[in-house]
């Protein structure tokens, strides 16, 4: 498998490590924003454990640790392993991004 890192170009699978589904978002909350603890726990449970596990195109996190150390967000078909697109995480590089960029 080869992954086209937007920075480095196409590279061998061995240079990357995989994290998984990029759909789940880490719930945002502030400690004393009075959010319901049960709901919060459920939101985190969803974020940490539940997956769509799609058979088809999936947005997922890859880390180019064996290269430029950028986190990437790829679209890949889990049935064919074909990559549709590869983007960089908002915080790779130095450009200023708003919170919750992902």
């Amino acid at each position, binding site marked *: *498998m080869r992954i086209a890192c937007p920075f480095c170009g196409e590279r*061998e*699978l*061995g240079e990357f*490590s*995989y*994290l*998984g*589904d990029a759909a789940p978002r880490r719930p945002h909350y502030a400690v004393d924003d009075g959010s319901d603890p049960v709901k919060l*726990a*459920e939101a985190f*449970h*969803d974020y*940490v*454990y*539940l*997956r*769509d*596990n*799609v*058979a088809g195109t*999936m947005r*997922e996190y890859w880390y180019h640790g064996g290269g430029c150390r950028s986190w990437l967000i790829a679209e*890949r078909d*889990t*049935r*064919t*392993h074909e990559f549709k697109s590869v983007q960089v995480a908002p915080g790779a590089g130095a450009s200023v991004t708003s919170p919750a960029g992902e």
Partner: protein
Amino acid sequence: MKYSIFSLARAALTGHRGWTRAWRDPAPKSRYDVIIIGGGGHGLATAYFLAREYGIRNVAVLEKGWIGSGNAGRNTTIIRSNYMLPGNVGFYELSMKLWERMEQDLNYNTMVSQRGIINLYHSDAQRDAFARRGNSMRINGIDAELLDAAQIRKELPFLNYANPRFPIMGGLAQRRGGTARHDAVVWGYARAANDLGVDIIQNCEVTGFQRTDGRITGVETTRGPIGAGKVGMAVAGNTSRVAAMAGLRLPVESHVLQAFVTEAIKPLLPGVVTFGAGHFYISQSDKGGLVFGGDLDGYNSYAQRGNMPAMEDVCEGGMAIMPMIGRVRLLRQWGGIMDMSMDGTPIIDKTPVDGLYLNAGWCYGGFKATPASGLTYAHLIARDEPHHEASRFRLDRFLRGATIDEKGQGAQPNLH
């Protein structure tokens, strides 16, 4: 038709024209008390135990392809009960006990071969971890031995004792572990279930669920709708897709695991040897092929095939620990779709949907679980309460924090 050397000899006289189908090929009925989705080891075992133990015989097993076309027909056939954590220990030992009487139960030779399994260790830390595991097994009445370097050398003289990177310091042995003929397990359960009246329906893919006010009342299939009192999923790698038809999101990811077999050679390996530190495990099939594997490829996949880095990683492990296999040729390589749960431990439970049951999350360890999974899942479906040996395989354990994580990797399926 009972199988035995005598019936075989008798059949020989008539050129084996006397044999009949091992299982019928029925058309689906309009309704069953229980429908099991998935004609793998688990699905068929569940149907068998429903009929044998719980007297529920109006059962159909629906298989989208041919029975055993999933992981049951793809696995490296290792059976063992060397688990450590509460919840796992008892369950896998129950399974081992069922393996030990399988041929007689099924009247089918599934070649359960208890030639033993040895996990090698290479550091004090690893030894301590194995000691912890082994003592947990022993306290639960399961056989385990901690072997030192000298004992390993005696049993496995062909290993690489010169490897400075992974000095072989010893191993954890379970003598009752071993292998079984995976396809035969599928066929044996199919035949036995069939004899008890279960309909095994191949080339019948479930494409949706029928519900009336929330409760499952049947399934849509490529061979038309079929009514059911209860429906149990046993679809392994396809769990999330089938569950999604009922609107469920699960703590499961599908990953590809590869395995390999070499050309057949004369007997070389006594039992199963695992080299965890090097992502390599190996055994020899009765046909003579070395059957080996290692870690997952590491990314979500439904492709049933893997890539070279994983092949290389496994073979490197093999050459590090067992350099005598260097000239043996790798004959075939394949991949199966693992239903990896988020804590590496299976789920046998009711779902939030009334009448729909879940059996999934077997990761790369579900073949050894086949008999116990069938029995405990049948119990759950028949009695609507978990079998005591599977009482911790609950769906809500992730919300409660009661995960069972043998590897301590957390919610990272590709690392389990």
